[in-house]
């Protein structure tokens, strides 16, 4: 095999096998630290040995066996150093629970996801831990993606691992009665990763960070494979796919954010849209009342079904927002609903709705941007300009500021 061929095999194995190797080791040794380090060592060994020895016929099994040996080596080394430590380590081994279900729900990666996204951990710790343990991103990569110091991410992960071990956060799939709330906690983490990739919060950053959106989608696909019957998992995956499909159309060649209504729909990714629509149809056919992500996915399915923005079925979108408001009465949902009202009943009606949200959303740039747009449409240029000023002041993303500034300049 050529050198690039081996390199590609290592990269592919890393993408496909990392989470499985970490999860298998975490289960065997009951220690995320040991699992993470041994998995990293096994991949480093692969990089060293595969070019000379050739890629093994079953890379996953080779990596798991190698990582297993590395973990035992490490524990032996530590035993010699500290006998008492060994006892602690061994007593924390998990017993095989015969009542645990087999099949996808028994997949060790699923336990790993639930442990990394445990509600007793801080949200930013959950995000970092999930990207490291499941996604296989290095601490440096996570730090770069979130524009945080590497040492801060390292500390977050170390602290989280220490809490998992000391407070004994269990390594298992939650009980059926707790599952909906816990799945929702996992989905929140994945959605956070996706959103940070889709609209980076910092200034002077790329408007879209594909490595984060891609990682979030990959993890959502994994969740979907592990929990195929869960409607919200399917909903979140569909929502991500339908949003990601518009990624290239979302930023202009001059680095400006392009609003949905002005995007070149011909450059949308039709394969991702088809996959997203398929998931939405599947959920509709199930007849089960949809949760938040499924409704958001359905809204995006309506948008992506219109070949031209003028063909958008706004009454359908408003009906979906009405449904969403009942589940999630947050002012941000109400703001998006108002935008649909503007398309159906005109900007004046939408402005009346926005006025009622002002108190809660005065610090949110999108509120002022939406207001500015509505004021412009009814010819109130001066008021519109003031609203754009406010939106520009509050917006964090450079590409978004550029787009708002251009709109402001276009006012007569």
């Amino acid at each position: 095999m050529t050198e690039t061929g081996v390199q590609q095999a290592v990269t592919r194995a890393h993408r496909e096998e990392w989470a499985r190797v970490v999860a298998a080791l975490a289960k065997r040794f009951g220690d995320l630290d040991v699992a993470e380090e041994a998995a990293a060592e096994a991949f480093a060994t692969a990089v060293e040995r595969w070019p000379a020895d050739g890629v093994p016929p079953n890379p996953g099994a080779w990596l798991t066996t190698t990582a297993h040996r590395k973990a035992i080596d490490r524990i032996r080394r530590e035993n010699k150093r500290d006998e008492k430590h060994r006892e602690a380590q061994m007593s924390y081994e998990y017993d095989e629970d015969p009542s645990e279900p087999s099949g996808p729900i028994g997949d060790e990666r699923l336990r790993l996801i639930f442990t990394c996204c445990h509600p007793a951990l801080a949200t930013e710790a959950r995000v970092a831990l999930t990207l490291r343990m499941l996604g296989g991103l290095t601490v440096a990569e996570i730090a770069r993606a979130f524009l945080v110091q590497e040492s801060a991410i390292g500390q977050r992960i170390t602290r989280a691992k220490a809490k998992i071990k000391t407070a004994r956060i269990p390594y298992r799939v939650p009980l059926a009665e707790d599952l909906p709330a816990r799945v929702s906690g996992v989905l929140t983490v994945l959605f956070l990763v996706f959103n940070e990739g889709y609209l980076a919060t910092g200034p002077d950053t790329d408007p879209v960070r594909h490595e984060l959106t891609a990682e979030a989608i990959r993890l959502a696909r994994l969740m979907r494979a592990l929990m195929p019957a869960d409607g919200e998992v399917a909903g979140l995956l569909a929502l991500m796919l339908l949003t990601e499909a518009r990624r290239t159309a979302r930023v202009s060649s001059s680095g400006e954010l392009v609003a949905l209504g002005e995007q070149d729909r011909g450059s949308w990714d039709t394969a991702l849209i088809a996959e997203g629509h398929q998931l939405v149809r599947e959920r509709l056919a199930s007849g089960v009342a949809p949760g938040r992500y499924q409704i958001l996915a359905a809204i995006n399915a309506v948008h992506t079904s219109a070949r031209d923005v003028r063909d958008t079925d706004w009454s359908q979108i408003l009906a979906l927002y009405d449904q969403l408001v009942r589940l999630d009465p947050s002012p941000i949902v109400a703001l998006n609903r108002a935008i649909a009202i503007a398309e159906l009943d005109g900007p004046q009606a939408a402005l009346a709705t926005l006025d009622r949200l002002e108190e809660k959303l005065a610090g949110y740039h999108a509120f002022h941007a939406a207001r500015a747009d509505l004021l412009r449409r009814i010819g109130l240029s001066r008021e519109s300009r003031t609203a754009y000023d406010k939106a520009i002041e509050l917006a964090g993303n450079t590409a978004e500021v550029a787009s708002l500034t251009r709109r402001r300049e276009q006012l007569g």
Partner: protein
Amino acid sequence: MQYLVSVINDNANLATPEEDAAIDVFNDRLQAEGYWVFAGGLGAPGTATVIDSRGGEAMFTDGPFVETKEYIVGFWIIEAPDLDVALKLAAEGSKACNRKVEVRPFL
């Protein structure tokens, strides 16, 4: 595995009779289901005395070691297989005593 469940008070109110009754029901459940190790209520921080014998002779200081708005008024020590079980019990305990609680593992 044992956990300390501290009850946090953010006002000077004593437990009401309803709260006391709910705590009794919760305690009975802990005992019946084998989670119970120990529990107790504590006097107000003003009743505390700090002792420091590191200098050889014991030094006594009136009052708690740190003045805070929120302080511990009681605690449970429970035996639970893992944090998920401990958190569930703590959630019920919080409801019973009508106060915030904090869960910490014993080493």
